[in-house]
C-alpha cells in the first residue's frame, strides 16, 4: 500500500504558538541566570584569594548600579526557578507513602517550602549572629 500523501508542517517559531511554551523556556532560562551568579561568586572567591586590591575591585563591581541591577535580575530568576521547581516536584518523585495513603501534592509543596525557608533562615542567622 502506498502511503497517503500528507502535509508535514514545520516547527519554526514553535515557542510563539502557546504561552505555555514561553513559560517553559523562561523556567529553563532561569537556570542560566543562576549558573552565571554562581560563576560571579566563584570570581569573588578568586579575588579574595588574589588579595585586597582584587577583592575591592570585585566588591566595587557588584555594588555598582549595573552589578546591583544584575543581582536583582538573578534574584527574580531564582524566585521563578524555586516556584516552578517546587510546583513540579510532586511530578518528579516516586509516589510517597503506601497505596491508599499517598502523600498529596499539597503536602509535598508545603514540605519543600518549609525546608527551603528553614535553610534560608538558618543561613541568614549564621551570617548575622554566627561566624
Amino acid at each position: 500500500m502506498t502511503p497517503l500523501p500528507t502535509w508535514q508542517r514545520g516547527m519554526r517559531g514553535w515557542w510563539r504558538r502557546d504561552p505555555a511554551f514561553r513559560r517553559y523556556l523562561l523556567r529553563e532560562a532561569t537556570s542560566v541566570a543562576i549558573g552565571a551568579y554562581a560563576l560571579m561568586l566563584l570570581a569573588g572567591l578568586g579575588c579574595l584569594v588574589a588579595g585586597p586590591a582584587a577583592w575591592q575591585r570585585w566588591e566595587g563591581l557588584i555594588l555598582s548600579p549595573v552589578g546591583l541591577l544584575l543581582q536583582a535580575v538573578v534574584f527574580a530568576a531564582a524566585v521563578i526557578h524555586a516556584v516552578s521547581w517546587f510546583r513540579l516536584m510532586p511530578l518528579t518523585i516516586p509516589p510517597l507513602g503506601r497505596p491508599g495513603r499517598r502523600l498529596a501534592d499539597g503536602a509535598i509543596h508545603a514540605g519543600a517550602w518549609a525546608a527551603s525557608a528553614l535553610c534560608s533562615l538558618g543561613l541568614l542567622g549564621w551570617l548575622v549572629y554566627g561566624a
Partner: protein
Amino acid sequence: MTDPETILIEVLRWHPDTPEAPWWQSYEVPYRADATLLEALQTIKDDLDGTLTFRWSCRMAICGSCGCMVNGRPELSCHLLLRDLAPGPVRLEPLAHFPVIRDLVIDQQDFLDKLPAVGAYLVPAEETEAAAAAPAAPSRQTPAQMADYYQYAQCINCLLCYSACPQYGLKPDFLGPAALALMARHDADSRDHGQAGRRAARDADTGVWDCTLVGHCTEVCPQGVDPARAINRNKTASARDYVFDLLLPGRRR
C-alpha cells in the same frame, strides 16, 4: 447581551490535490448557545460546504476522534460549547505535529506504531520465569492499589497531548506522552509483572529522557491523565535501575 445570530469559524484547509496551497476558509455558522463546536462543523458539512473533512464519532468526549487545534490549543471539538467561544472568530487547524491527510484529519499511524513498544498490557505472574512452576492464582487488587494507576488508565488516545508537546514536534521518534503514560499505567499496576520487559523502551533515548517537562500535555488532556507525571516518575525509576545496575552488576540474572 443578546446572543449573536452567527459565529465565524475559520478552518485551515489542505487538500492532497493541491499540496502546495493550504488555505484558510471562513464560515458563518448559525449560533446556538447549547451547540458544541463539533455540531458547528457538522452544520458546515451538511449545509454550507460538503467538502470539509474532519473526524468524529461519539460526540461525548470518549472516543478521542475529534481533536483539532482551536485557537492554537489542542481540544476535542465535541467538548467545547459555542457559547464559550463566542463571539469568535474561532480558528481551527489540524492537530499540531502530525502529518495532515486532509483538512482537519491527521495521520495517527506514528502513535499506533509506538503503542507495541511500551508494552501496554498486563503481564501476569505466570508468564515470568520465577512463577512458571507455581500454580496460577487469581490476581487480586485492592481499591487503594487500583488508585495508584487508575488516572493513567483513563486515556482515550485522542493525541491532544502529542500536539501539546514541542519535544515530540522537534523529535518525532520520542515515544511521547500518551504512550509513556500507558507504560507507567502498567508499571504501576500491582497485578503486573512486566516492568523488566518495558525497561528497554523506557531507558532508550526515545523514552522518558526525551521529556523536558514542558508539562503542557497534562494541561490539555481532557481525561486528567497527567502524562507529565507518569513520564517523570518513570525517570526516577530509570535512574534508580541505572545506578543499581552499576553497583550490582548481574542483579537481574
